[in-house]
């Protein structure tokens, strides 16, 4: 029950992108095609789960026992950077089309604040190992969900008669705002 609450909370109620405003860069950058958005979501989810797992281990086996919590930021960034490098190599090996489609946004997962935010939040809330991993997975699912909704709307928009001054970035930002507003509706679904 506890895990379910963590999952729904991180994926929907406190959606990383639409409520915490973390990871806006890929949310706007890779959300023009649903297929690409889904791949990006998968890659980010993968990094998030691994990051949650590894950062928990580092936090609880190294940083806390040796009383070094001030190293959280530095060590988490190292973990995330290494993981992204690994995912990049993996995707390049398995699908060069996807590799080129994701382009610069793949290495940019490194600096995706959603992932660092996830690691720091999990540490702050003192989740245990299982909770951390579930939290990471839920955050990834939430991220993918936000990207997919956005990409779906933007694909429809290509056909829509948008007034000239709103084309491109303005209409995208307006939609992002409306989506965030819609997700506010989930607040109160779970207390806290």
């Amino acid at each position, binding site marked *: 029950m506890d895990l379910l609450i963590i999952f729904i909370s991180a994926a929907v109620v406190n959606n990383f992108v639409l409520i915490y405003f973390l990871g806006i860069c890929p949310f706007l950058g890779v959300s023009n095609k649903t297929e690409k958005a889904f791949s990006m979501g998968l890659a980010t989810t993968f990094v998030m789960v691994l990051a949650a797992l590894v950062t928990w281990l580092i936090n609880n086996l190294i940083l806390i026992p040796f009383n070094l919590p001030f190293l959280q930021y530095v060590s988490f960034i*190292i973990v995330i950077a290494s993981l992204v490098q*690994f995912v990049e190599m993996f995707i*390049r*090996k398995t699908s060069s089309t996807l590799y080129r489609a994701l382009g610069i946004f793949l290495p940019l997962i490194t600096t995706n604040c959603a992932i660092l935010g996830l690691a720091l939040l999990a540490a702050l809330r003192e989740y245990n190992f299982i909770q951390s991993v579930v939290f990471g997975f839920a955050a990834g699912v939430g991220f993918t969900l936000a990207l997919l909704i956005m990409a779906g709307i933007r694909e429809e928009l290509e056909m829509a008669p948008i007034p000239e001054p709103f084309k491109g970035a303005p209409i995208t930002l307006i939609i992002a705002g409306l989506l965030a507003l819609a997700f506010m509706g989930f607040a109160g679904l779970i207390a806290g």
Partner: protein
Amino acid sequence: MNVIFISLLAMGGLGLFFAAVLGFASEKLKVIEDPRVAQVLEALPGLNCGACGYAGCHDLAEKIVAQGSLEDLRCPPGGSEVEEKIAEILGIAAAPAVKKRAVVKCGGGKALAVERAEYQGISNCTAAELVAGGSKACTYGCLGLGDCVTVCPFDAISMGEDDLPHVIEEKCTACGLCVEACPRNIIELVPCDNRVVVVCNSRDKGAVTRKVCKVGCIACMICVKAAPEGYQVADNLARVNCEKGDGVAEPAIPKCPTKCIVKL
């Protein structure tokens, strides 16, 4: 002091650990790319214009290397020069490519073509064509709003005083983007050796064409009579037989009653 030492140890250890994992992974997951792909990519112009039909130069380079020949694969902006270089890399003989350039097949500029209305909509040929076919009475003629100028990545087309696009031949790479952009299909890629062109695209009957444009082809057949080898007339429109060359077509230029055959 102790804290600093432990921090150094912890961070150093973490760094070493991840370096080892990544080093191992980079060996395991190495992507072996044919070195010729990089060479071919270097030889290509790197414009990523997509005129070859592939998503950018890298894609084309991969296709060329995978196929091992240039058959059915062309780089229109690069032309024969690039193709020779690629052929050298692949160790094959290059096929002689015909250099082409875009030709606007409409001569009905301001004062020559009849205007039937004033177009006040979005300044864009596609939009004008959608509304009611623009301002000109001729439904085949150039709309003069410059979609081809906008789409040209090489600045090779400019709008002239007469509201007709002019192709700057030295800059034109025959990529074909303007051919696709023109909603009336007026632009055609013609071999550079062919200087004689019929600058009209109207398939209207002669009487109709005469009413709407002073320089339209009325399919009078005089060019065919003057130079039977050089021309053919179909759908009320004369066309130059490009394969026969300029020499055959030239005698008909002064004979054309509407002066729509020109030597560019």
